Structure formats: structure tokens, C-alpha cells
């Protein structure tokens, strides 16, 4: 073998994966970027370039702005609440407790359920007439609190968020549990000898020890939340009105329901941009280690 063929060999090995990567990821992405600059309806054979107007519309159209706003609310909640709950559960279940494995399974259980099944369960729990939540409220004398949780403009999004938290808290718990195994018990012992109580040990030993896990959890939470689709689609279909539309469902509605593939693709790229804005710093940070 000569030097030229030696240089070529790695590329030949890479070629199959590269072709798949280019064909099924890069090309569709670039194609959708082009579509996002057009007025294509998703059905016709022709389209016209419209520049950045589809992107401008996201920030000027009230319905799109509402979807963007809901996505930011959704992301803020889904990054903080499941993370804090997951951390709390992980720290608790990292102790030598009786039934520890059982509780780990119970708290992680919802995460492995398909989102469509989760949505179905919670739609019934929230049913204004027969749902368990309202039945319990009526049963304990809080009849006035019973309401159509998903039918009310003010409670629909928070109600779906509760479902998302219930489903999503188990995953950060699992990651934090894994991270906690990397924190040396000797650090806790040393801190205890220095007189640190449980709270100070948590602040000064646990949290710094989980630094890399925080990054993973935070990044995955952001990426997962900006592209949240299934729960909204199945539980509220964006309603009542459009009060629970988020960017991912709004993208779907634009492309498939409104025949606005250009506008929908622009929303897809906004979602991708938000995800990349979080992911690239994460990759850079991890690459330095």
C-alpha cells in the first residue's frame, strides 16, 4: 500500500456513514432551510422566494408570538421543575433507605411510558365530568375548585405542564443518581468531620460534584422542551382557541394543516436555532475537558 491509499482508507471507511448522514440529515436540513425562504405550500410544484418574511412573521403574527411565548414558558418550567425534583429524588434515593429500589422504579416509571399513553391517562384524570382530579376535589368538599382544567384558557397550559413534569422528572433523577455515584464518599466524611451539616454538604459537596451532570441535564431539558409536541397535540390540540400552541405544534399546523410549508420550515429552524444555541456551548464545554 502506498501513502495515498493509506490516506484514503479512513475516508472509505467513513463513506457509508457519511453518505447516510448527508443524505438523511444534512440534505433535508438544508432543503428545509431553502423552503423556509419560500412561500411553498407543501403541495404545489412551484414556489417563490420570499426572503426572510417567514422568519419575520414568527415575531409579528400574534398566533406565532403566542406559540413562541408558550414555548419559553414551557422551557423555563421544564428546565427548572423536573431538574429540581429529579435532583431531590436522586439525593434522597441515594441514601441507604428501605425500599430504595422500589421507589427508584416508581419515580422513574412514568418516564418510560409513551407520551401518547401519558396524554390519554391525564386527559381522563382532567376530564371535567368524570375525571379523578375533579371527583377527589368534590369528594373532599372543594367543589368550587373542580373545573375543566384543559378547557380553561388560564389553566390549560399549566395543566399540561403538570403532566409533562410528572412524565419528565424521572429522567433527571436517573442522570443525577448516576452522577452521585461519582462523588466520593470520603468528601462527605471530610465535610462531616469539618462540622458541615446535611445542607452544607449538599451545597458544597453534592452540587459541585454533579457539575457535569448539571450540564447534561440542563442541555437535554432545553432541547427536549423547545421541541415538545406530543403532549400538547394529544391533550389539547393547541386549544382552547390557540392558548396552548407551542412552536413544535405550530410548526406542524403550518406545514400540514395550513399548507404553509415555508412558514412551518422557518419555525422548525427557529426551534433548531434555539437548540443549537444551547447545544454548541455545551459541546464546546465538554470538548475542553
Amino acid at each position: 500500500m502506498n501513502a495515498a491509499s493509506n490516506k484514503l482508507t479512513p475516508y472509505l471507511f467513513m463513506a457509508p456513514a457519511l453518505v447516510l448522514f448527508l443524505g438523511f440529515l444534512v440534505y433535508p436540513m438544508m432543503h428545509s432551510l431553502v423552503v423556509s425562504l419560500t412561500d411553498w405550500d407543501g403541495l404545489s410544484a412551484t414556489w417563490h422566494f420570499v426572503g426572510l418574511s417567514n422568519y419575520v412573521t414568527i415575531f409579528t403574527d400574534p398566533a406565532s408570538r403566542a406559540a413562541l411565548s408558550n414555548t419559553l414558558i414551557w422551557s423555563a418550567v421544564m428546565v427548572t421543575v423536573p431538574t429540581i425534583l429529579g435532583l431531590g429524588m436522586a439525593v434522597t434515593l441515594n441514601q441507604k433507605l428501605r425500599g430504595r429500589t422500589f421507589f427508584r422504579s416508581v419515580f422513574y416509571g412514568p418516564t418510560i411510558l409513551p407520551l401518547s399513553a401519558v396524554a390519554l391517562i391525564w386527559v381522563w384524570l382532567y376530564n371535567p365530568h368524570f375525571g379523578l382530579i375533579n371527583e377527589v376535589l368534590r369528594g373532599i368538599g372543594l367543589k368550587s375548585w373542580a373545573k375543566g382544567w384543559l378547557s380553561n384558557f388560564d389553566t390549560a397550559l399549566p395543566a399540561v405542564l403538570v403532566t409533562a413534569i410528572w412524565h419528565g422528572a424521572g429522567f433527571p433523577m436517573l442522570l443525577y443518581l448516576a452522577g452521585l455515584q461519582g462523588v466520593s464518599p470520603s468528601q462527605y466524611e471530610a465535610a462531616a468531620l469539618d462540622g458541615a451539616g446535611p445542607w452544607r454538604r449538599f451545597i458544597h459537596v453534592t452540587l459541585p460534584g454533579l457539575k457535569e451532570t448539571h450540564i447534561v441535564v440542563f442541555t437535554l431539558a432545553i432541547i427536549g422542551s423547545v421541541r415538545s409536541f406530543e403532549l400538547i397535540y394529544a391533550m389539547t390540540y393547541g386549544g382552547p382557541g390557540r392558548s396552548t400552541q407551542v412552536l413544535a405544534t405550530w410548526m406542524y399546523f403550518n406545514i400540514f394543516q395550513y399548507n404553509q410549508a415555508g412558514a412551518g420550515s422557518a419555525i422548525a429552524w427557529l426551534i433548531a436555532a434555539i437548540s443549537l444555541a444551547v447545544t454548541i456551548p455545551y459541546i464546546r464545554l465538554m470538548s475542553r475537558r
Partner: protein
Amino acid sequence: MLQDFVRRSLPFAFAAFALSAACRKTAPQGAGSAAPAKSVLRLLHIEVGTRRATLQDVLTTYNAQHPGVPLVEESIAGGGNLLLGDKVRTDLAAGNPPHLFQMWPGEIVGPFIDAGHLRPIDDWFAKYHWDDVLIPWTLRSVERYGKRWAIPTASHGMTFWYRKDIFARLHLTEPNTYSELEQVCTTLRANDIDCISLGGKYGWLTMRLLDFFIEHTCGPSVHDQLNKLEQDWNQPCVVDAFGLLVRWIDKGWITSDFLNVAPNDARLPFYRGTAAMTFEGDWMESILTQEDEQDINRYDFFLPPSDHTPRRFCGFAEMFAVVRNAGNEDRVADFLNEYLQEAVQAKTLAGVDWTARRNVPLDPAKWPRTKKWRQFIDNGATYPPTDQVFPRKVMDDWFEIQDSVAAKRTPPAQGAAALGKALDNYRTYRAKMAPVYEDRATFGPQGSSKAPAP
């Protein structure tokens, strides 16, 4: 490392971008050009279970009696009518469209016609004389730009279904006027029974009731003119219709908190007897007896008491749309002709509630309510459901306004004004795009060489 990765990846990304840009104006349009004959002819629909079995039986019989390229049916399990359009759109983009697909009229099938994907079949209508046997109002629903794009396969009517046992217990009779309908609701409420159970999720079940209110407050003529955008929607009778929606909610006549209850779930209060009515279609008999195992003797329907003559009900057709250039056209036409024969239609009517043919025989002992319905559908006057009149985006504006009025976030007058504005915008858009759409519909996805500029 990242910079290195980006630097190395950029040439590939730009190559893909260039390839993508080069493909512009040649979006995937498999049905746009003549396709080679295929080994099977595909019929795409949404039916499942015994309803699907009926269609399978029809196709099996046809394939046995008419040897040739076999017809096969494909069902979209689960998603049903919500996903059928998505599936057809994806198949078209992939260059593998079905030959025929089930679809709903107006602005639901409209985008497929406007994009040039459907074949006008006026020549088939002329050849086989289908006009002679089909219900006239269903024929109008397959027309666009003066051509016919599908055969009507089903004709449905929607109205108030009620619990006969509850009505009998409270000595109520079927209302013949709107005032009598309100009296029925008042009596039901006084007996702690909701007048009507609605499921507002997706918007269209609430819309059916609102459509009835518009028919009542505006009258048939104005209602039709509103649908044709020949009248401004921001007018007193529309405000009154919204006002009635609020009135029904305020009086407790509609099940509480209905705005995000799924339409199928809205049947439960009706079955449990906590609500005495619902607004459903003629298909309700098969749902009651076959799917939900109810005693049909407890249920009946009455036409909506609009206080106008004719006493119209909400009616719509379903269709088999024919994809342009999908191949084997003679075989497709022959199948459709066979499909519309009385014996086959008797089978589909009993098995899937499907027929658009007049006077199809049906066993009244087995299908008493459907038999009663057919008299109205064959001969009655109808108005279309609004979600078939306007495109989906406009309808979502409508649903948003409707929900907002129902939730009392928007007063009726403001709701009518918002509706007027949304439909004004659509009227302007439609006027601009109609020549382009008609050109594509006539000449195919690429349009003619003299396609008008949008």
C-alpha cells in the same frame, strides 16, 4: 475541536445546500407527471374494524368479478380524519400517491385540487351517467372551478340526537320551533339534566351548534351568502348567533367545561343520561348499536328547528378523490362505476353508512334511524358545516374566536367583528390566488406556461 469539525463539515453542508437550491421549483411531485401503471390500485381511507371489512369485501368482490390490476385498500389506523390529509400529502410528496382517497368536500379537498393533484372526472360522469343516480346536493360538493374532481361516496346529515327515555319521563316532545327547543332545555335543566353534551376539542362540534344558531338567526339565504363571502360576517345576525352560544352556556344547557372535551368523550354524558341531547350525524346509529352497544330504542333525532323554510340541516358528502396521472385510469373509472351500483351501495350503506346514491334499499328493522335519515338526506335541504367552507387556517381563527366567546373572554359583538376581519382577509387572499389555483387545477401541478402571477 468544534471549529475543526465545523470547518470540515462546511463544504458538505454547502454542497447539500446547493443541491437543495438547485432542486427549487422542482419540489417532489410524484403525481404531477404521468406515472407508469402500477401492480396494484390503492384506495386510501380511514375506516377500521367492521367498517373496513365492508370495504375489503367490496374490493374483493370487484377484483374477483373484474380480473385485472387488483384494487387494494389502505386504512389509516388511529388518527382517522385528523391525519388522512397528512398521509395523502406525504404520499404525494414521496411520489407514491394512492389512486383514490377518501376525502371531505370544500376547503378540505380544495388544496389538493388547487395544487393540481386531482383529475377532473367530468368525462367519467358523462360516460357512466352517474348524475342520474346520485343525490344532487352531493354532486355540488365535488365541484370546483366548474369541474368535478371526485365521486361522492357518502351523504351525511347532522342534527340533535336525543334520549327518548328522558324525554318521555319528563313529558317532552320533539321541538318544532326554536322556542320549543329552548323550553325543552329549560325543563331538562330544571331536572338537573344538561340539555346537550358537546366536546369542544378540535372546535368542530361546537361549530355545528353555532352553525345551527347562524341558520336560525340569519336564515338560509343569508347563511349561504355568508358562506360564499357575499355578505360581511360582522353583522347583527352573527352577533345574535354568538349571543345564543353564550346564552346556552349561561343557562347551563351545555355540559360544563366542554371546550377541551374530545367529541367522542362527549357522548358519555349522553349515554349516562346526565345530558339529554348531542349534535351528531346519521352515522350515530351504527356507533350506538355497533361500537358503543347502546339500545337504539332509547335514541332518536329531530331536525334542527331553525324556524325557517325549508327546515335545513347540516349536510355534507364524503368522496373518493381521483389522483391525476396515477395510472390505470380506465380501471379506476370502471371500479368507481361498479362501486356506485345499487347492490354495492346497499352493502356500503349498511356496513359503513356510506352512500350518495338516491333511494338505496336498507332494512328498516335493522337500521330504523338510518332509514329515517335517508328520507331527509335523499330529499332534504342542507347547509354545509363551516369547516368545509373555509380553509383550515381561517377555521382555526374561527375556532379561536368561537372558544373565546364561549369562554366569555370576547363579547359576541367583538367576536363577530373579529370573524368579519378574518374572513375579509381571506376574501382578499382568495381573490388574489384563485386564478393561480384554477390554472394549476386545470393544467396540473406545474400550471400552464401562462400561469398568472400570484
